[in-house]
């Protein structure tokens, strides 16, 4: 049972390039999330999804887009990467709605934008 899998684990981009981070979960969870984690700051929610075909903005959505075409996958896209998007990105999923649902996190994707 893999849980939450993120690919790629590491990536270096140049300013202006685009890329997509893929998150896959095999727990049949309805709810999926993308967070970023920066030194000296807590995890911040970028976008989330409450089910297949739905997405919503979190705390820091600017510069990112997401899609949830299949229940098990949640994609995070950067259309034109900026150095401020250098961060570690975590995908998470949960089986319960709202703040009472424990989150299952992936191992993270470390992105550097030069």
């Amino acid at each position, binding site marked *: 049972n893999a849980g939450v899998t993120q690919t790629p684990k590491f990536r270096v981009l140049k300013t202006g390039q685009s890329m997509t981070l893929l998150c896959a979960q095999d727990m049949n969870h309805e709810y999926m999330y993308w967070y970023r984690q920066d030194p000296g700051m807590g995890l911040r929610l970028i976008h989330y999804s409450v089910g297949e075909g739905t997405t919503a903005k979190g705390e820091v959505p600017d510069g990112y887009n997401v899609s949830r075409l299949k229940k098990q996958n949640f994609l995070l896209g950067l259309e034109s990467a900026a150095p401020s998007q250098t961060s570690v990105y975590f995908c998470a999923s949960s089986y319960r709605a709202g703040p009472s649902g424990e989150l299952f*996190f992936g*191992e993270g994707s470390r992105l550097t934008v030069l």
Partner: protein
Amino acid sequence: SQKIEQNSEALNIQEGKTATLTCNYTNYSPAYLQWYRQDPGRGPVFLLLIRENEKEKRKERLKVTFDTTLKQSLFHITASQPADSATYLCALGLNYGGSQGNLIFGKGTKLSVKP
């Protein structure tokens, strides 16, 4: 302004002692509070959840308290071991009426347990 603070960035204790980590918040009314453990280079792992109407929750060597009057949660690890060394994150669970709630994470406290 709204804030969530974990009282120290780092906490060093001796093996066998009880580690106590603090999570304080202002201008939030959380319905739940969660604690996670994060090891270097890894994703956070859920440990415990406590509801606003619960005073205390235990799991093996872990204990969490939640005081909505003081706006504080305490996280205790008894009989600490070097393997407990990690960063511990608290997260406030907020209910937004009718819609998907949100978790607000603290910055974490790095715990080091020395043998």
